[in-house]
Structures are given as structure tokens and as C-alpha cells.
């Protein structure tokens, strides 16, 4: 049986900000924006792949051209065949390949322009020069640990979605609805204590065993 319970985390954090002295320090830029700018993905896999391909192709072509000019072609690239092909083909024959090249270029441009999902979940910091982030797997583990500490919970599973945190708890057949609230409160308290930014609301689901 599944019974979802939603805990509004934004309310909890706002209350904390009001209670804690010095927490609401006026900053020129919002902490979330600042953290996102520092934690957005650097596109390392895509960058390294393109750079490696480019280096290999350019270096091999340069060597091939230079060795062909001195009369001892290495034969790594079939330059003669490529030139023959270019001499024989018309622009119309290239249409499909050209479309593929343009599409690949568009993908690379999008990779460069789209900010992407942060590599770490941003955490609130009082100093504007400090950016704190917790790994997604780390946040999942600490929340799962908190949920499993609630009485009656046998097992818990945490999923971090774009706007929500979904906590699924497995309990025995005698569990009650108040347990959902306890789990929601425990997870919400941990998130508020941690001060995570942009995690959204917590959704708790209950799975009873034996029904």
C-alpha cells in the first residue's frame, strides 16, 4: 500500500532563517545562483572526447601531408583516395553527411550552452566566498539513514528528483499514518539542518509488508 505525505521544506527553512540571528545577511547575489554557478558541470567527458578526437585527426593529417610532401607517405590516412572521392563527388552527394555534421555541431553547441544539473547539491553558507555542496549519493545516504532511525521503519529508499525528494519506507503490517509524519519530519529536519538549497519538498511513501 502506498500513502504519500508531502512536507513543505521551504516553510521550515524560512522559519529557520527568521529564527537564526545573522542568517538573513543581505547578499548581492542569491546563494542558490552563486552555488549553481560554481557547481554546474564542467563538461569534462564531452570536452575530453572532442579534444582527443580533434588532436588525433589533426596530428595524423598533418603528419600525412608532411610525409607525402617529402615523398614518403606513411599511409595512416588514405589521402589519395579521399582526394579522388572529393574530385568525383558533387555537393548533392554530401547532403546527408552534411546534415549529420550540422546535427553533431548543434549537439556540441547545446552541451556548451545548457547549464546542466549541478554535480553537487548546493548547501547554504553564510560567507559569500564559500560554496558548499554535498554529493547526490551522499545526500541520499544521510537521508536514508535518518529515515531508517524512525521506530518501525525496516528499510528506506531515497530518490532525489528534480523538484522533490521521494522517501519510500518499508514497515511491518502494524504501521500507522503517524509514522509517515515522523519520517517526513526527520528527513525535513535533516535537510533543514544541512541547509540544502533547491531540493524542493519531501514526499514520503509507505509500503507495508504483509498486506
Amino acid at each position: 500500500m502506498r500513502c504519500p505525505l508531502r512536507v513543505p521544506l521551504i516553510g521550515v527553512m524560512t522559519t529557520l532563517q527568521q529564527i537564526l540571528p545573522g542568517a538573513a545577511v543581505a547578499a548581492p547575489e542569491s546563494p542558490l545562483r552563486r552555488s549553481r554557478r560554481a557547481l554546474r558541470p564542467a563538461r569534462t567527458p564531452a570536452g575530453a572526447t572532442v579534444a582527443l578526437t580533434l588532436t588525433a585527426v589533426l596530428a595524423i593529417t598533418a603528419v600525412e601531408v608532411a610525409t607525402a610532401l617529402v615523398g614518403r607517405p606513411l599511409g595512416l590516412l588514405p589521402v589519395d583516395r579521399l582526394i579522388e572521392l572529393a574530385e568525383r563527388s558533387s555537393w548533392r552527394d554530401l547532403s546527408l553527411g552534411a546534415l549529420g555534421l550540422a546535427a553533431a555541431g548543434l549537439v556540441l553547441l547545446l552541451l556548451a550552452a545548457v547549464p546542466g544539473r549541478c554535480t553537487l547539491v548546493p548547501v547554504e553558507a553564510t560567507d559569500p566566498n564559500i560554496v558548499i555542496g554535498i554529493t547526490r549519493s551522499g545526500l541520499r545516504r544521510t537521508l536514508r539513514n535518518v529515515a531508517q532511525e524512525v521506530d518501525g521503519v525496516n528499510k528506506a529508499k531515497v530518490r532525489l528528483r528534480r523538484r522533490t525528494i521521494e522517501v519510500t519506507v518499508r514497515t511491518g503490517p502494524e504501521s500507522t499514518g503517524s509514522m509517515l509524519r515522523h519520517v517526513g519530519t526527520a528527513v525535513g529536519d535533516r535537510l533543514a539542518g544541512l541547509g540544502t538549497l533547491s531540493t524542493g519538498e519531501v514526499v514520503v511513501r509507505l509500503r507495508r509488508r504483509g498486506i
Partner: protein
Amino acid sequence: MRQYAGNRIGLAVVGALMLLIGGYAWARGQDRLPGLPARARVLPERVTELIAERPWALWLLALTLVLLALVSLRWLLISLGWGRLGTRSGTGTAMLCVGLKDIEGLTRAGVRVMGNGSRLRVSVTCPAAADVGAMVGKLDREIVGRIRREVQDDELDTLVRLHVRR
């Protein structure tokens, strides 16, 4: 504080070039460029003859290709972390460990000075049972400030990476 933008710049340049070349070739093939017939050869005989008459043009091409290969090799090395990983700060790491001595089961803690002392990177790995919230508060209010003062100056940009292990 900004994330390393070299990969995005490189991807944008290569992507824009591919889009331009692909777009031109497609438009030419579809006869959409006035005055440039789609049935024309990609490499006309006139061009091959012209290049054959001037061998220095091929040497220039080879030199340009070598220079471009070196630029992309530099991009590859930097994207893999060359010159970006910084140096480990022993003093900072020691201060971090002393500051977090109350946390039981702390498996990894380290401080690195990056980009010629313009940035600090603090990494901490703790067990799931640890009170991560308290640890974040301590790092934010006390420990990072102390490390910054010791390593460089109080205004140093600092990135703290937290991880919770199984």
C-alpha cells in the same frame, strides 16, 4: 566563483564550426545558395591544379594543422586536470582534521590550493551516521575561515565538497 569554462568554450567553437560547415554543405547540396550549383564537384580540377603548382601551400596547411593539433592537445590536457588540480595543503588538511576531530569515522579529509592560490578546495567524507548538518555549520562558521587565514587570506574563494559513504 566560477566553474572551469574551458570545455564549454572549446565545445562551442567546435560545435559552431561543424554547424557552419555542415549547414553550408547541406544548403549547397540542396541548391539553396544562388549562383553555386549543387551538381558542381566538391574539389574542382582547377583547385587541385592550383595547389599542385604551389607546393608551399601544402606546407602551410601542414603547419596550420600542427598548430591546431597543439592547441587541441593543450585543451585535452587541461580538461583532464593538468594545471587545474592544484597542490595539497598539509597545513590546511591538518587544521581540517583537528576541526572535525569530533566526527567519528571520518574517512577522508583534504585541502587543496588551486589556480595559483586563488581558490581553495576542501573535501570531506564522513559516515552516514554522522550529523552532516552540524558538520556543515562548523565548516561554514569556523573551520574554513581558519584554514583560509592560515593558507592565504580571509577572502579566498572556497569550494567545500561533502560526501557521505556507506
